[in-house]
């Protein structure tokens, strides 16, 4: 039986890598993948704590998170497609319409 702390540390490392990726990458699609990685790290936390607490509810939440991630991927990639059609770029530094 592996200690829950180990799972939590691994999830934290993966989440931090996702955050780092969002900060250092400029490609919109890769930033999107980093967000998926962060969602997965959270899923791992849910499962580890679900086992720790001895309740299966955490797994139901992971199920919902996966559904939301799928919906998010579909909508996000549609936004990226229409962005590319308009601007011919995926570099987030060049997409600055909402900045003042």
């Amino acid at each position, binding site marked *: 039986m592996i200690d829950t702390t180990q799972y939590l540390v691994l999830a934290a490392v993966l989440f931090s*890598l996702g955050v780092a990726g969002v900060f250092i990458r400029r490609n919109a699609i890769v930033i999107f*993948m980093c967000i998926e990685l962060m969602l997965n790290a959270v899923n791992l936390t849910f*499962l580890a704590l679900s086992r720790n607490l001895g309740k*299966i*509810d955490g797994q139901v939440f992971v199920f919902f998170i996966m*559904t939301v*991630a799928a919906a998010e991927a579909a909508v996000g990639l*549609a936004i990226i*497609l229409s962005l590319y059609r308009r601007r011919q770029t995926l570099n987030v530094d060049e997409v600055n319409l909402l900045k003042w």
Partner: protein
Amino acid sequence: MEQVMFWLCGIIAIIFSLMMILKRNPVHSALCLVVVFVSLAVLYVLLGAEFLAAVQVIVYAGAIMVLFLFVIMLLNLDQEVRSQGKPRLVLKTCSLVGTGLVLLLLLTAGGFRAAGVSGQQALAPAGTGNTRALAELLFTKYLLPFEVTSVLLLAAIVGAIVLAGKKE
């Protein structure tokens, strides 16, 4: 045994997520992310969530990543690599590690099933699997969120079509 599995999959997950954020080519990033997802699926089995491990492989590594790769190919973002020297190395590494992880996943699931040492054993009533316990909870206590999720998916489909559809 469990420790070995945990460290192996954990280290593979960390290494490949590092590669994902460091690779310049989006296609390579996507492939590395698939490997991360599969190694996380092995960890899910270790945690006693066999059903979610299967869903992780089918939905994440299957559907979502195919969607990503589809968009990358559609936007022709991989031109830079074709001119580069060795794109094959990443592809080979990813496919090798990925195949190994899938085998490991099957081995873990099969092994735990045979030995009856599921981490979830205490959570599910005797003789019923993790899937059944999950379904019973999902269709009783969490019925309303489940129905709301279906509305969310419908909204996402409509939104995606509206956003990505051709406008003349």
